[in-house]
């Protein structure tokens, strides 16, 4: 069998078109620059029915138009690859690009559905709906959701990946993209390594997709938990001020004064894991979500004990159980459940992941604390807070149901940025060989692995690097879009 080419049979048609689009774009861009430097103005604008309409076009406008159509042409070609990838069955016809695009079919469909539904109902969806008014926001959202769907379909649902991310196939070490898997039919393998093999002859494409799942498993949740901790402590600090504030702020500044890397080196090494400190930290930090949720419910419904008590009980039992399963790890320092009750232990988080999770959470929460504290101090002077106070609402009600919802805009924006930052941090850990197990396909570790041979083999390191880059970029764009839209309120 022949190795796959990048573009397959589509190449002769689509490649020239795409090249032409790029050339046209560049040409128009240069022309545009030249013209504006030369002082050309755009054509006359007339107003008809309150709308601006160009009546005569100047060369500058033509260059703009050319750029627009070039981009559209390029996008159309990309779309053609995706559609062809889904429609044509034979990888040899559609090439690597088409095949990869085709493997992502579930993601495209999910994206399409999400966007169609969201735009259809956008007026009813609040801030989320407004996102679809902002171009930047939509692009960011599309990139982020692409990776979210890729992670979900590729990880637990096992749809996109072509090979097991840890499986090594002899003969494919550092082979270029599109390489044929020897004896694939007999061994029941997918017949190609779409993006080539890495230094240990594992499939780069599958590792990239699995890596998305690894990142999605940790980054958003660690950030979410950090937010819970930050909010639970930041609200009272900002609301009450005084000693409590001084003390908590001091603690937050203390953690922030640590260089992050030093903190990681102090927390994530095997020696410290041996002492059980990270497990204890997990035990403490994971308490915060429970406190957060129960206080939230309690403060809202404490006037209706008949409703509150059962709800609170159910929530506490469920969360408590989850908490115990999470914290209890047989064989570590926190191993309190008797063997007879071990059935209660729903799941065990592998030690390496737990440590990383806790460390990342620990590093992020003081910053969140500071933001929440600042916002609370600002919002608590507002009239509606005073109104709630005169109504005789409890302080926690005011904090959680009056102040917090009004601080959501900046918090959501920061949340998006912080997921990106956490993703980068995870990679940093991988770079120093701390934390996640080395075979883990997460992007940080794969980049670190691939960089060693980057000067001869680009293909193992580039896909995870570009993935990480695009996800963080997407999150940044999304945050930008959200910020713009929330400012418009």
């Amino acid at each position: 069998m022949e190795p796959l080419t990048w573009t397959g049979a589509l190449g002769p048609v689509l490649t020239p078109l795409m090249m032409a689009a790029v050339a046209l774009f560049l040409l128009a861009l240069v022309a545009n620059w030249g013209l504006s430097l030369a002082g050309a103005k755009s054509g006359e604008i007339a107003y008809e029915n309150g709308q601006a309409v160009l009546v005569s076009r100047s060369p500058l406008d033509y260059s703009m138009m050319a750029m627009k159509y070039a981009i559209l042409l390029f996008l159309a070609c990309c779309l053609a690859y995706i559609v062809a990838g889904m429609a044509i069955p034979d990888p040899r016809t559609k090439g690597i690009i088409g095949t990869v695009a085709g493997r992502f079919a579930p993601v495209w469909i999910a994206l399409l559905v999400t966007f169609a539904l969201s735009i259809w109902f956008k007026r009813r969806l609040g801030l989320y709906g407004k996102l679809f008014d902002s171009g930047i926001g939509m692009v960011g959202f599309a990139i982020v959701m692409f990776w979210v769907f890729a992670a979900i379909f590729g990880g637990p649902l096992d749809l996109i990946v072509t090979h097991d991310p840890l499986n090594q196939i002899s003969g494919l070490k550092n082979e270029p993209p599109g390489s044929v898997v020897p004896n694939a039919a007999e061994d029941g393998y997918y017949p190609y390594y779409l993006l080539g093999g890495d230094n240990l002859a594992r499939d780069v494409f599958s590792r990239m997709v699995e890596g998305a799942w690894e990142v999605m498993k940790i980054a958003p949740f660690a950030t979410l938990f950090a937010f819970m901790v930050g909010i639970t402590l930041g609200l009272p600090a900002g609301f009450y001020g005084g000693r409590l504030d001084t003390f908590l702020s001091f603690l937050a500044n203390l953690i922030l004064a640590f260089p992050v890397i030093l903190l990681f080196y102090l927390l994530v090494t095997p020696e410290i894991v041996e002492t059980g400190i990270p497990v204890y930290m997990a035990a403490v930090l994971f308490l915060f979500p429970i406190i957060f949720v129960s206080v939230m419910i309690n403060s809202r419904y404490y006037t209706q004990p008949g409703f509150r008590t059962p709800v609170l009980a159910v929530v506490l039992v469920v969360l408590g159980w989850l908490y115990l399963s999470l914290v209890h790890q047989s064989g570590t320092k926190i191993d309190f459940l008797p063997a007879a009750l071990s059935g209660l232990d729903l799941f065990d988080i592998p030690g390496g992941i737990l440590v990383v999770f806790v460390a990342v959470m620990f590093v992020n929460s003081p910053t969140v604390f500071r933001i929440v504290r600042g916002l609370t101090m600002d919002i608590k002077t507002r009239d509606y807070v005073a109104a709630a106070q005169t109504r005789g609402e409890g302080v926690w009600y005011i904090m959680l149901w009056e102040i917090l919802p009004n601080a959501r805009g900046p918090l959501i924006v920061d949340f998006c940025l912080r997921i990106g930052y956490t993703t980068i941090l995870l990679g940093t850990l991988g770079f120093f060989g701390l934390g996640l197990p080395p075979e883990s396909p997460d992007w940080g570790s794969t980049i670190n692995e691939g960089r060693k041979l980057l000067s001869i083999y680009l293909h193992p390191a580039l896909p995870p690097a570009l993935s990480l880059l695009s996800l963080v970029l997407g999150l940044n764009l999304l945050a930008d879009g959200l910020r713009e839209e929330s400012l418009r309120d």
Partner: protein
Amino acid sequence: MGLFFLRRLGVMILTALCLTFIVFFLTNLYPNLEKLAKTQGNMRMTDAEVTQWLDNRGYLQPMPVKYAQWLGVAPGWTREFQQDGQTVVTGRCLDGAVPAAEAAEAPRFCGILQGDWGYSTVFRDSVASIIGTRLGLTGYLMFWVMLLMVPSALLLGVLAGMREGSRTDRTLSTFAITTTATPEYVSGVILIAVFASSAVGLRWFKGTATAAMENPNFENFFLPVLTIALYGMGYIARMTRASMAEVMTAQYIRTARLKGVSFPNIVMKHALRNALIAPFTVIMLQFPWLLNGVVIVETLFNYKGFGWTLVQAAGNNDIELLLAVSVVSVIVVLVTQLISDIGYVYLNPRISVT
């Protein structure tokens, strides 16, 4: 004003004390001490030998006592040995084994307060001299990073914020976001591959900065500087852009425009000073954050500065060196915070420190 400084100084000292105690606590946990004994003694020591080794070097005293000794508020430990028929003494304040008479004359206290930063077990040298040299090298690196990063970030931000929403703005903002989305370990790697490896073949620069420690030049120093600067640049640029955009919508700018002041003049004379207040604080607060980048880049480029020392000290559980590293970083963080506060006041006459 004086009171303000005193309070800040008090907080700074308290923070440094707490932080060093945390580091002290974590590095003095038994598994870490065991690791220290094995890396310094040898890898094949039995448990009894490890205990012996640690005990002989004063590591097994109670934690608060050790910490007080490190601070210099408790007398350093001493141990007496019989060697060749006479009593010799080793101790925290003594250099190797000395006869008892000589030991009696040595100072009893030797900690930070006495100016003694201790001895690095990894580098076999005094901590003060290591920190001095390494900090100097990193300072040099940071100087060039700042020199490259700050002007280009400000320029980028001002250009983008000048006309918010314009194509220039979109292009420059995307560039800024992309650089912040590219962590050092990605950009550094790509830069080395493109500009320093023989595979791509450009070889404009050198992929290692080891020689730059003695003889820095454009060829061996530009890539590390660029790698750090790129990552930090985007953030400052975006802050500048936001602040510039805000200023450009202010009333007085509109008035100036209506008066017919030319656009360049508005930007240069009216908008810039006010737009630079916010970025100033950001730039100052970047210092501690850059420290991270420095660690990665120094490791990647083998530039043996402060960040590299941190990794070595942390990786080998070099207690006194790590403590010194944390003291220095606390000071850097807190001093930059202080400068940023003061600078904020200085640039913005509406606020005063009191």
